């Protein structure tokens, strides 16, 4: 193979004859800076030019430039990456684009999760980048996480030069084949002339219709190749994608059927999902719920679709959802599901799910309708468009008309909330109760921060006890359930919404998977507050083993380091709370830090998340207690 070395005027060894040379100092030479002479000014200028990060270089436009131009055109201000052999041509030109802030992560998985976190809080496309081979495979978990939760993301990887593809070259892997089934679309670009079109298409596909990740694999020679290909307009992009025409406007006939169902229902319930947030339809949802007086239950990723203090917000549904919510679903006569997909964590056994309910299901993805449950009224459309259209079609309902229904719901809610443990903050063993800690974090941040969960018990406690009031303030790997998601995703979230405090709430298991990104937080001054829930266990594993596997606790106990020392080694202030009366002070201390901080909560080791619906069972089969202990 032949490696081409590009002539750069910034590279003195190969500077072409016409490169701008340092102006010769005329006459008297002075080494005193700022003595006002022309000579010293020339020396200062030369020194400044030499030391400046951004050196204007006389060179032609290459594929790597197209990538940077495309990112800027798409409004990318920050992205996350890790360099490597074949992506170096891109890093070689990055310095010429100071408007692009590149965050050097510590592992590509962290980069992908950070792009995901950035996308979730901003609603914009997140961008991550890695090199070929291991760099690319490390991105895969993050891409999968984004796919299952419909997160708009563009993942960029380098690949070996086109001529080496298929030759098992160094760091070559068929990453295009790997990401094919786990992206919304993917590309392999071997020619720089294709880059403008591919990037414009990728961003369009990632954010349009049901969002999702798009992967672009670029050969090293395409990054280095000269090109004058122009960037296409949005119209040209749409015209070039005849197979991608998402339906956003709902069908009028289906809307009429839905309006009739809603008008006739006596015990209706809205099931709000992530699609409401994607469509930024929270105002429409509230207006619709108020007009029809239909209570709103939400999925895990639908948290924030409605302010939880709103009288019509009923709460979190599903496997670890509130008992009163599941009970209401099981007795509802109509479910109006919007922007959700009847995941098995939501329905449990479909045969016994919502047995009295007819279902109106609105989703932007036609493939989601009728996939998991059969429905009476399917509506394909964007949540905002659907709710807007329906709002004009449904009659206004007075709250008094539902007095009996609401009284029943309120009664169930009282019962359910009082049966779940939520008292003084100390659990059986005297150690901290995790739900109490979560509640305090919500309270002390005025319920106005961004809260990022990892995966496991704390994820469920966070979902239930934080008290979410704002859209896009809760991040959680719902679909793929990716442990290790929390810290890197919080990093992206904090960069996306610097106006909000960002709390990363992680268990000790997930934290130990990706805590190398603590160093990124320090290096790039990203002020994430980490709440580490340490029960010295893989808590959810332990809970399942206790209840479903007859107490066979294999591999459930997990040693951890001294997290204060760990944080300090990274240069991050650490605080610790082991008793209820230490919680507030520790949270406040972390809030007072200008920059990242960590709070180590030593929580009860054997606390379970109740209620719990065992896998394969139905929503009416919730376990609320175990071993006689009230949790």
């Amino acid at each position: 193979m032949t490696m081409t070395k590009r002539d750069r005027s910034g590279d003195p060894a190969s500077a072409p004859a016409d490169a701008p040379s340092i102006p010769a100092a005329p006459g008297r030479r002075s080494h005193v800076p700022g003595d006002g002479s022309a000579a010293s000014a020339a020396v200062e200028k030369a020194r400044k030019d030499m030391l400046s990060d951004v050196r204007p270089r006389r060179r032609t436009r290459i594929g790597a430039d197209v990538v940077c131009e495309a990112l800027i055109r798409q409004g990318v201000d920050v992205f996350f990456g890790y360099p490597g052999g074949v992506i170096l041509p891109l890093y070689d030109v990055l310095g010429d684009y100071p408007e692009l802030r590149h965050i050097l992560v510590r592992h590509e998985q962290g980069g992908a999760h950070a792009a995901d976190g950035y996308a979730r809080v901003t609603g914009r496309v997140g961008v991550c980048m890695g090199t070929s081979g291991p760099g690319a495979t490390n991105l895969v978990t993050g891409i999968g996480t984004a796919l299952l939760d419909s997160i708009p993301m563009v993942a960029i990887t380098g690949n070996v030069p086109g001529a080496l593809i298929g030759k098992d070259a160094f760091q070559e892997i068929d990453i295009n084949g790997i990401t094919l089934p786990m992206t919304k679309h993917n590309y392999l670009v071997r020619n720089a002339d294709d880059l403008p079109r591919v990037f414009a298409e990728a961003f369009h596909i990632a954010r349009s219709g049901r969002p999702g990740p798009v992967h672009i694999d670029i050969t090293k020679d395409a990054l280095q190749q000269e090109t004058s290909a122009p960037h296409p307009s949005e119209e040209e992009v749409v015209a070039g994608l005849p197979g991608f025409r998402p339906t956003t406007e709902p069908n009028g006939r289906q809307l009429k059927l839905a309006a009739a169902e809603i008008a006739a229902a006596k015990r209706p319930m809205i099931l709000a999902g992530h699609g409401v947030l994607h469509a930024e339809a929270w105002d429409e949802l509230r207006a619709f719920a108020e007009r029809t007086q239909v209570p709103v239950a939400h999925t895990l990723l639908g948290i924030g679709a409605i302010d939880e203090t709103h009288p019509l917000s009923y709460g979190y549904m599903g496997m670890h959802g509130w008992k009163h919510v599941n009970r209401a679903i099981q007795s509802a006569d109509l479910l109006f599901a919007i922007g959700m997909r009847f995941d098995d964590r939501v329905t449990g056994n479909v045969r016994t799910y919502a047995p009295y309910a007819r279902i109106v299901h609105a989703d932007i993805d036609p493939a989601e309708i009728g996939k998991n449950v059969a429905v009476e009224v399917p509506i394909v459309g964007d949540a905002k468009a659907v709710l807007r259209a329906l709002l004009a079609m449904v009659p206004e309902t007075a709250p008094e008309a539902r007095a009996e229904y609401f009284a029943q719901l309120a009664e169930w809610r009282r019962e359910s909330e009082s049966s779940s443990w939520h008292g003084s903050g100390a659990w059986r063993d005297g150690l901290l109760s995790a739900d109490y800690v979560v509640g305090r974090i919500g309270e002390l941040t005025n319920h106005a921060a961004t809260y990022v969960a990892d995966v496991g018990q704390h994820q469920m406690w966070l979902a239930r006890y934080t008290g979410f009031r704002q859209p896009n303030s809760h991040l959680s790997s719902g679909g793929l359930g990716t442990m290790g998601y929390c810290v890197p995703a919080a990093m992206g979230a904090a960069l996306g919404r610097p106006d909000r405090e960002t709390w990363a709430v992680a268990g000790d298991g997930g934290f130990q998977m990706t805590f190398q990104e603590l160093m990124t937080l320090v290096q790039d001054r990203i002020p994430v507050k980490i709440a580490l829930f340490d029960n010295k266990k893989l808590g959810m594993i332990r809970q399942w083993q206790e209840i479903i596997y007859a107490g066979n606790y294999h591999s459930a106990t997990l040693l951890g380091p001294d997290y204060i020392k760990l944080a300090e080694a990274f240069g991050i202030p650490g605080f610790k709370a082991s008793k209820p009366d230490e919680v507030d002070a520790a949270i406040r201390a972390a809030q007072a830090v200008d920059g990242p901080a960590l709070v180590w909560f030593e929580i009860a080791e054997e606390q379970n998340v109740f209620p719990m619906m065992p896998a394969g069972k139905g929503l009416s089969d919730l376990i609320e207690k175990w071993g006689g202990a009230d949790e």
Partner: protein
Amino acid sequence: MTTDGANNGRPPAGAPETPAHAVPPPRALPGGGETRRHVLVAIVLNKPGVLNRVSSLMRARNFNIESLAVSHTAQPDVSRMTITLRGDDVAVEQATKQLYRLIDVLKVQDVTAEPTIEHELALVKIRSTEANRAEILRLVELSQGRVLDVTAESVVAQVTGSEADVDSFVGLVRGYGIKELVRTGAVVMARGAGSIEEAIRR
């Protein structure tokens, strides 16, 4: 099914409330209906990897392709796939919807219930002897096939027709010994003047 008006055993909207003690009927699961052979026609952009995308999706979504025939169409950038698979109507509808999610797929149509011409071609190398050659040639002729190659020990026959036609010919000659058998898989075209491709012509 997700069609309007289906009740899944649910009471219609506005019906008197079901008494709390009544045992509700189990909710109908999507699918679970009678399995039959379906024929899908997919019009796709002729881009690298599009066959891989389609087959990978079918594998990942747990659909088992029986046959798949791919070729160019009259438009150079468009290819046509004929996919046969077994499944109930809802499962196949789900397969269709999933195929639509692929960016390179322009159109998918389940033509199972439509009037179509369905054809496939098979080449069969049949073991033959001096004694039974005439008999084999006669069977090929009866099945409206063609003999493409004859040697002292074999006959290569070409038969075309529906899957059932080819099955029946293969059944007929199986007794002589089949040395080799290759089938193209079905290709279909709708009867009448309408065109599946016309709808997507740009």
